């Protein structure tokens, strides 16, 4: 328990340093695909990330990837994180990246915060272009992964 608390303090200080350099907190958009409207996983992820100092945009359920990409551009987020109880992540990652490329904004990262990810599929997710995957890590490690990738893109 003690260790968990120090981990959280660690990641908060990493986020604070990021915020000092970038001028704003890291901003992540949690998109809810799939057919479940009240997805508790997403609420949990949102709270965990906000507790670590992220600004979390929550997308309404049932948007398609075109609308989600447009919303991400309007809000100028750093990361879009996909969550779908159906698990069609490879499709979503590829399509979102295509949309972002058409606006010339491939600097926005894609992450996967869904819990329904088969272990053997993780490599393919990274291969299709995901920058961070939540499953099999904790939220703390997920946040650290996102932040280290952001360092490369922004600085």
């Amino acid at each position: 328990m003690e260790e968990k608390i120090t981990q959280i303090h660690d990641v908060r200080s990493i986020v604070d340093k990021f915020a000092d350099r970038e001028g704003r907190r890291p901003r992540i958009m949690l998109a809810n695909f799939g057919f479940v409207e009240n997805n508790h996983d997403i609420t949990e992820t949102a709270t965990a990330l906000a507790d670590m100092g992220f600004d979390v945009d929550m997308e309404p359920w049932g948007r398609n990837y075109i609308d989600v990409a447009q919303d991400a551009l309007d809000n100028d987020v750093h990361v879009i994180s996909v969550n779908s109880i159906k698990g069609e992540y490879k499709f979503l990652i590829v399509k979102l990246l295509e949309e972002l490329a058409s606006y010339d904004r491939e600097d926005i990262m894609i992450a996967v915060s869904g819990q329904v990810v088969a272990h053997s599929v993780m490599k393919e997710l990274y291969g299709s272009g995901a920058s961070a995957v939540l499953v099999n890590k904790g939220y703390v490690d997920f946040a650290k992964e996102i932040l280290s990738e952001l360092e490369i893109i922004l600085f």
Partner: protein
Amino acid sequence: MTETYKPEWVPEKDDDKFACRVMYGVKGGHEGMPGSNVDLSRKSAPVIKRSKMTVDDYVEGIIKGDRMTLSRAITLIESNAAAHFYIAQQVIQRLLPYTGKSTRVGITGVPGAGKSTFIEALGNQLCAEGHRVAVLAVDPSSTVTKGSILGDKTRMETLSRQKNAFIRPSPSGGTLGGLTRKSRETLLLCEAAGYDTILVETVGVGQSETTVRSMVDFFLYVVITGAGDELQGMKKGVMELADAVLINKADGDNKRRAMVTRAEYARILQFLRPATEKWETRAYTCSSVTGAGIPELWNEVIMKFFSQGKENGVLSERRKHQTLSWVYSMVEEHLHNLFYRSPSVLACKDKIETDVVEGKLPPTIAVQKLIAEYAKTEIGDYIKDTSPFAIK
């Protein structure tokens, strides 16, 4: 064929007499199995860095009405980094001639009053009439973790799909200082980008209502139906800022109660000073779900407010006052930053803090010491280095 090996108890020379073989176990990496043999090396595609935009890029993009430039410009304004501040102020300076032409409406109310639903209904109606609507929502951030959850688009689903609507939620960043400047400048950017109606929504945390009041022309206070006792507890200070009080959720069974509440508010409003000269603040009902009452509110109340205000000059007077108060709020913010970022203050701060906490130094003397340290700095040089407005 899966690989096999001989067990260790088989003697070397009698190997062919023993038929027992052991199969290798399953390595990890399957469902439910511990351990991972997944290669997590990075993506195949090269990393694309975020492009840097110049002042000209921002200005040209916004004048053309390009949504993406607007979005990135708002990020620039909201940034706390010193380098971004300099560029942001140049962008604003060059865009000032293009601003001032929109209808600015501020909307506040307690959480649960239905502001977002109302904004969605109003926004959809305005888009149908051909307006371009921008919605700026300020969501409070935690003062402890400084993170925030921005959920406005979940509550304005249909509006966020409209091509002519731009919704931008902003975190307040844990402190309310600097909120005035940033929200106001965001509003100016949206105006320059061609949005003719700007709706500013705030939850009503801290001083955010007075902040929003100082940015908008018309201020709307959204409430829900309530009994007489609840009305006594409402924020009278906010009521005095409002140009209209809107009782939401006047549909179905609630309609009668909404009428009663409206009468109560009308009674109370008679005793309060109106927020705008020559304008009477009244109470109205509407239903954001059925849309009843919203066209009337817009056309008969808000548009009348604007035409009247333009005729008798009240609107332009108010905007002049608002610009001046913007100047002074920026002065305060600047002084605040000058003090807290001054190197000599930072150097002595910790020692003074420990002394105060241990009781060795009275707080009032600590204040004098801190200010003396600050005044000792060569203020002239410090301003030259950090302020973009100073003459170099």
